[in-house]
């Protein structure tokens, strides 16, 4: 008999909910969850910009060069550059002062890395503060109402997608939690293109980067995301008569509500 194992983990000052299915052994499940958690904590040690001793903080303040930092830091910086080019500049981790701040992608990068520790788990789902990835059988995942503040778990949702089969990951970006936190690369002003953008695909980092880029760059970036093989749901605005105006790409994996 197998049971479900759930854990809420903290790392990077965020909550990560892990659900494991198909494991018969409590010890094996605990071991998988611990391994997953350790990988997330490793990302804290590498990338926190608050702690002055992390490789990323030392790089940002000029105390270290690229030659001095662990390969994981190089990997993340290369990912930032990859998505900057791929999104036509809409995803850009460079701050106005010239420092590269990869905070926007470290979370999902760390999650994808940590899921390699779940290799022996028949079926799992990871909810990483709003970005979701699943493996081994379809699971229903909601798309948050952009008006909901805080943890959207348990709230009403705008749409439901099936993850763990054809699509593994979905990431959502928008203004729900912090107003005007994304900048438009064209105007240099806070991006107000959409209330919310969700991107579904195979790779959580890719979905995350494109969701951020779409909120920053608007319509043209949506087109680029679809051309890159991703599926997109945009919540454009609230309707005066109730509900939200939205558009979805042709293959957006809606499941029935």
């Amino acid at each position, binding site marked *: 008999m197998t049971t479900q194992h759930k854990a809420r983990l903290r790392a990077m000052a965020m909550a990560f909910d892990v659900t494991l299915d198909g494991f018969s052994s409590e010890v094996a499940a605990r071991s998988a969850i611990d391994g997953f958690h350790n990988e997330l904590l490793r990302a804290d040690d590498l990338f926190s910009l608050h702690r002055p001793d992390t490789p990323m903080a030392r790089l940002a303040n000029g105390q270290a060069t690229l030659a001095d930092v662990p390969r994981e830091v190089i990997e993340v910086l290369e990912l930032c550059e990859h998505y900057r080019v791929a999104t036509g500049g809409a995803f850009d981790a460079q701050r106005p002062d010239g420092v590269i701040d990869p905070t926007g992608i470290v979370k999902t990068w760390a999650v994808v890395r940590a899921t390699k520790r779940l290799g022996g788990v028949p079926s799992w789902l990871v909810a990483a503060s*709003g970005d979701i990835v699943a493996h081994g059988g379809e699971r229903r995942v909601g798309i948050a109402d952009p008006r*909901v503040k805080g943890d959207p778990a348990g709230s009403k949702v705008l749409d439901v997608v099936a993850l763990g089969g054809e699509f593994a990951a979905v990431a*959502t970006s928008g203004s729900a939690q912090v107003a005007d936190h994304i900048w438009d690369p064209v105007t240099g002003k806070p991006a107000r*293109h959409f209330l919310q953008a969700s991107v579904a695909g195979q790779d959580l980092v890719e979905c995350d980067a494109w969701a951020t880029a779409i909120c920053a760059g608007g319509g043209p970036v949506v087109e680029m995301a679809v051309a890159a093989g991703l599926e997109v749901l945009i919540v454009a605005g609230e309707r005066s008569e109730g509900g939200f105006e939205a558009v979805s790409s042709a293959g957006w994996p809606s499941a029935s509500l």
Partner: protein
Amino acid sequence: MRGSHLAVIVGGCAVIAAAGFAAAPPLHPVRQGADPEPGTSATPGPSSTSASGGQTFDGPAVENPRGVYQAQITVVDGVVTDVVALQAGTSAPESVRVNDMAIPLFKERVLEAQSADVEAVSGASFTSPAFLESLQGAFEDAGL
């Protein structure tokens, strides 16, 4: 599963004209970083005495691509009695109507918030790492 769902189609606008995309403004290689307003990037603040008799500690202003965040805690007799965000983003957002985007082969939909049986919900990150980093700094300043 792919494409098998039926979206709620609004009027006759299931397919939006393709012409608009070409007319959209080009993307320039301008950065998308945090751009704090002048005067908002405070440094780690000294403690002060609040009206309630406790001491307040300002965390450092922590900046990330999502903006500038700064936490302040109030401590009374070694106990945190209040946590406030001195800085968390800028002004309120405005929604933009979908009609402004002209993207081909998209389904225009009207979505309503509904209860659904789901295992997880995807939404904008609901904890700001920068805010919590600033909060951590305030705790350290307070010696907690």
